[in-house]
């Protein structure tokens, strides 16, 4: 996105126009270039499916896809999003693999309080889309950035493995 012109700001808050694709739709907002993507999603755009846990990149509750790759949106700034593609949990069920993944996680009873769930889904979806297979070790590695206080991960891994299996058989 080198289509930016130099912006010289003297007072706070400095605002810039940011355009990006959000769940398939072009979105433009005026914001502080350092504003967290997490706050843009939740507070500015009302997409509250993405959660804030630690706010420091450690727990994965805020995971979204940036150009198809999982990132922790609490440490991504507005400026990094301009010209890019963002998918949040709200955009997942629109895709057949996303729908299948959520169904398999429900069937595996992988959700308790649900706080970690949006982040887990985003990481797992990126894994599936990268050609991920139903291998417990690899699934655990793909989910290594997502903490869950409730489930102990067994059922989550099982659900993701089932989704990988069924997706490949489709």
């Amino acid at each position, binding site marked *: *996105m*080198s289509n*930016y*012109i*130099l*912006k*010289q*700001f*003297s007072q*706070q808050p*400095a605002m*810039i126009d940011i355009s990006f694709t959000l769940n398939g739709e072009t979105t433009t907002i005026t914001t*502080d*270039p*350092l504003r*967290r993507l997490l706050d843009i999603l939740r507070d500015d755009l009302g997409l509250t499916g993405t959660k804030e846990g630690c*706010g*420091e*990149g*450690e727990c*994965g509750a805020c*995971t979204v896809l*940036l150009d198809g*790759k*999982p*990132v*922790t949106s*609490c*440490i*991504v*700034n507005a*400026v*990094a999003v*301009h*010209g890019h593609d963002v998918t949040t949990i709200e955009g997942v069920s629109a895709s057949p693999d996303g729908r299948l993944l959520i169904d398999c996680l429900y069937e595996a009873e992988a959700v308790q309080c649900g706080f970690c769930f949006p982040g887990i889904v985003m*990481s797992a979806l*990126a894994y599936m889309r990268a050609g991920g297979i139903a291998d417990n070790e690899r699934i655990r*590695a*793909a989910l*290594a*950035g*997502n903490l869950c206080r409730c489930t102990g991960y067994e059922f989550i891994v099982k659900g993701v493995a089932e989704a990988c299996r069924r997706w490949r058989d489709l």
Partner: protein
Amino acid sequence: MNTLIPDSLGQLLELLAENIPGTELLAGGTDFNVQCRKGVLNPNRVLCIGHLDELKGIRLDGEHLRLGALTTFAEVVANELLQGHVPDFCRALAHFASPPVRNLATLGGNIANASPTADSVPPLLVRLASLELRSVRGVRQLPLNEFFTGYKRTAMAQDELITAVLLPVNAEDGLHSYWRKVGTRRALTIAKLSLAGMGRIENGQLSECRLAAGALNEYPRRLTAVEQHALTTPLAAITRESLNEALRRDITPIDDLRSDADYRFETCLNLLQTCLRDWSDHA
């Protein structure tokens, strides 16, 4: 606070040349955002660089693999050119943080941040990496082992930035390699200690040996006394005691909340022994 989004590397260099104190670069933001939130970092001027194409890309450049400063850990792990030439380096960086953080964190940021635990540094040091530093005054190459000068201090001038990391293309050819990071859990672990090594064994003795530790000293660095000892002693004659004696000359341990100096020292000895054992077993 001023936030500036330069249009090109040239424009960035001019902004850096204004030498305004309290200027920070924003690359992947994984250190920047956490440190600002904790109040450790209070920049009064932020220069965004994450979008600059001149700082991206991995390519073969003569004798070197050239990794743009914005290369992420995830890109290193997945890059075919690097997997072909330096596969063990790719594997070493796969132990970094977690998948979402690996997609953001850049090599340039990891090195510039100059933390004692910077995980890319020990593997780069033993592969004789150098840095390309640039300013309006020009471009220079600096061996990575001359880059760090103290705790969180570097040889980078105020108007300079890292534009690329240069790895010798044959960095792993015919050599044994080693990388271990000891922490409390597998993902997202800040190293309590890490050890990287590259070595060659001929007739029961090391003919080439480079070792570098993270989290042991005030910045990651080569263990030159241990290297010398290992190069001048037949492998069978290297003992825990002899390594202990050499390692003592290589340290100025940092003490922090995570673990004390004795623990780091003992752990480093353990890793050195496993490293040499691994190499002899596969000689």
